[in-house]
């Protein structure tokens, strides 16, 4: 994800070469280029978004007419709803653990794959495969594996490991959800990071080797900084999707046992589509949107400290 500020590069050059009198014509061209996308975006994104914001200030129950209730949904969410804080905590817990593990594992796999002499592309396909599987099917297979008396319990028992069932235990249930999410999500980042690693010029690594840097140092001092922009792109995208986690929870745990795996994404579905509190569900969605925005902003701010932009 290239930072927005960099756009000025080509444009300022354009201005100096072509002069400002062409600006208007260029603006008109831009307008026509953007028009198809803008029509679609306004109709199918902006209007629904505005509608959803408006809904969050109503008590719409799907059937019947909505009534304007001011900010009382928001007040209820933060002060009266006994489930909001546990749900928020679960969501942040999931995002933190999933994000860190996803980046570490996919980076590890990427480095490992790039160290191979042959068969790199087959390994990339293997780790990319879950991307091609319908999300609901992924969750159902894993549900069969983790269900009480299912494959996982069977393996643990035959290895004489005494542990409670993953899906009925309050602490393990979230771990099950994270494992499934990692399996489904690690492939994209692996392929992305692997490609970035392979693009690090061999000459840099060769020069470092001659200077006496060992493999460990070469990784930390050269390869990692050079791929940090891609790492950043992967982290931002993964964070955005992980805050919205829903599929796996819907099929495997339904937020349970208790509220152990109830996340914001699931809470929105449950309130809106099962309990028909559309107004209230919209409120939760906007709080979630604010969180995603904040997290993304923090990441953009932090990137100055660790992402190296070349040239």
């Amino acid at each position, binding site marked *: 994800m290239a930072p927005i500020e960099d756009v000025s590069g080509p444009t300022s050059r354009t201005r100096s070469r072509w002069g400002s009198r062409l600006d208007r014509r260029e603006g008109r061209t831009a307008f026509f280029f953007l028009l198809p996308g803008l029509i679609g975006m306004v109709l199918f994104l902006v209007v629904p978004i505005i509608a959803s914001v408006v809904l969050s200030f109503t008590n719409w129950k799907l059937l019947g007419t909505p009534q304007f209730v001011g900010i009382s949904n928001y007040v209820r969410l933060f002060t009266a709803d006994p489930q909001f804080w546990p749900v928020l905590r679960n969501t942040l817990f999931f995002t933190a653990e999933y994000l860190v593990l996803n980046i570490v594992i996919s980076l590890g796999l990427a480095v490992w794959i790039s160290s*191979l002499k042959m068969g790199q592309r087959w390994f990339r396909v293997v780790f990319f495969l879950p991307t091609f599987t319908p999300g609901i099917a992924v969750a159902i297979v894993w549900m069969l594996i983790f269900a009480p008396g299912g494959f996982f319990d069977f393996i643990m028992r035959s290895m004489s490991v005494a542990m409670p069932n993953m899906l009925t235990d309050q602490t393990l249930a979230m771990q099950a959800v994270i494992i499934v999410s990692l399996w489904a999500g690690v492939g994209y980042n692996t392929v992305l990071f692997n490609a970035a690693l392979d693009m690090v010029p061999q000459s840099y690594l060769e020069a470092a080797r001659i200077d006496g840097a060992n493999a460990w140092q070469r990784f930390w001092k050269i390869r990692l900084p050079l791929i940090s922009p891609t790492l950043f792109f992967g982290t931002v995208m993964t964070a955005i999707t992980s805050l919205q986690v829903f599929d796996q929870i819907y099929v495997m745990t339904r937020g349970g046992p208790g509220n152990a795996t109830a996340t914001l994404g699931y809470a929105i579905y449950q309130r809106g589509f099962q309990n028909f509190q559309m107004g209230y569900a919209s409120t939760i969605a906007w709080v979630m949107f604010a969180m995603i925005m904040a997290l993304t902003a923090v990441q953009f701010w932090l990137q100055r400290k660790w992402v190296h932009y070349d040239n």
Partner: protein
Amino acid sequence: MTTKSRSRFSLALDVLNHGALTLVALLFLFPFFWMVTNAVRSNAEVTAIPVRILPHVFEWDNFAKAWTQLPFGRFFFNSMFVASSVTVITVIVSCLSGYAFARLKFPGRDALLMAYLGTLMVPAIMLIIPLFLIVNSLGMVNTFQGVILPVAFGTFGAFLMRQFFLSIPMELEEAARIDGASRLRILVSIIVPLSMPAIGLLSLFTFIGQWNNFLWPLIVMTGSDNATLPVGLTYFQTQQGTQWNFIMAGAALSMLPGVFLAILLQKLIYNSIALNAGMGGR
């Protein structure tokens, strides 16, 4: 002598390295194995205890049964049609907007780009109801355009294409501009051919995303003739119980085009992601 033994040592290390990763990959593939072995056993055995790793009787005809019990051919066609149409629209729209953002100067450009990015962060599930009301007022409920159009204008594509276009040197199109070529002509004859890997990547992600899309087709389309594959799978969940073996068989079948595409386009995916990775660097 020492170089020979060292090379033998590094060969052994290589074999070990490959072997270890192969093990990891096999472990990673286990859920697919589980999908297929559960597809070819009886429904009662799916839930039997103790678990059997391999079915008591391999019921390979479950694939045929799942395929014929529901109009799967129809589901395939519907999915293919919806996913392809969305992909074509998305690519065209994204190239046009991506070029405007990358190369053209107009007031409010950065703000508009930020707005595009912002829409990526809106929880999609929240937009379903308002979107349905809009599609309804356009009279597109239960039509293919009703399924296709609302998902064809995602902003991710415009952003992605902008990033790729930025990595194409200006010089390449400046010559054409001096010759008086229009922007559209430059886009079509210079930029697009150079961006084929990127377009391939966008197409692939859009196609797969729509191939697996569930909630929107479910809500807009009515009846099994109009169902896409993921929606079709839910017909195995009936009021009287669920045919897990058939769901697994159907899921495995529905993966085939994706797997085929993955293997076929491996080079394209890799090359275009390599480009993507490169673009992250500027």
